[in-house]
């Protein structure tokens, strides 16, 4: 994550968790310093078509894992919508994708 911000990339994490929960779990316990946004009503998650309805472990509607790299004009330059929970984007993939940006 440090490598990303050093490259001028702002990581922004979005989940259904409420702000209080994220503050405790991600900021206080895990010590992350980047932006966390809460989408408990799945408003944005639905708009991005990333709803995982009645997910098995939680039984709730949550977001499936996905990453989007967006340039300052708002255009998506790279994305990863994984087909496998265990396979996630790696920092080096993102930095590679960001090299093409102005």
């Amino acid at each position, binding site marked *: 994550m440090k490598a990303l911000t050093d490259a001028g990339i702002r990581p922004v994490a979005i*989940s259904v968790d409420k702000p209080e929960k994220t503050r405790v779990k991600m900021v206080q316990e895990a010590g992350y310093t980047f*932006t966390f946004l809460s989408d408990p009503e799945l408003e944005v998650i639905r708009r991005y078509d990333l709803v995982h309805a009645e997910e098995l472990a939680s039984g709730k509607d*949550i977001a499936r894992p996905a990453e*989007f*790299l967006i340039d*300052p004009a708002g*255009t998506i330059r790279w994305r990863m919508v994984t087909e496998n929970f265990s396979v996630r984007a790696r920092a080096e993939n993102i930095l590679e994708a960001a090299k093409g940006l102005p």
Partner: protein
Amino acid sequence: MSGFMKRINWQLWAGFVLSLFAGLSYPLLLSDWELTRDYAWANLAMFAPAMVLLILGLRRAFKPDKRLVSKIFGSLAAAFGVSLLAGLLFLVFVAFRWLPESAGAPQVGQKAPDFTLTDVNNKPVTLVQLLSEPINNKPPGAVLLIFYRGYW
């Protein structure tokens, strides 16, 4: 030493312990490393010798001179090892891929839909804001949106 090795069914024990380790090390240890998390090959590889040992142990447990208790114990140990392997295979090849289609997710080259959401301090934040607010006193080169499952 050799008398001891003859008395206990060491293949069965070794196979049992190895499959226990192979089955549990994935969720407990190896999933933290990207290479082994993505493919779980290290765990599946560990199961190969574990299964061989279990088969050898099982054959030994069912030799005619063995007592019933050794047959029961041998079968239980082998069944446990096989179910651990089945559990890992299920996790890696089925459960991890249980994801909905996201055909409508924005594609590369498209505009990212704008939004307003609240941050951890209950402050509203828009995508436009995130794309323009400086990082280390410089305008941001990009925003990386990370959708994650969360804790619920």
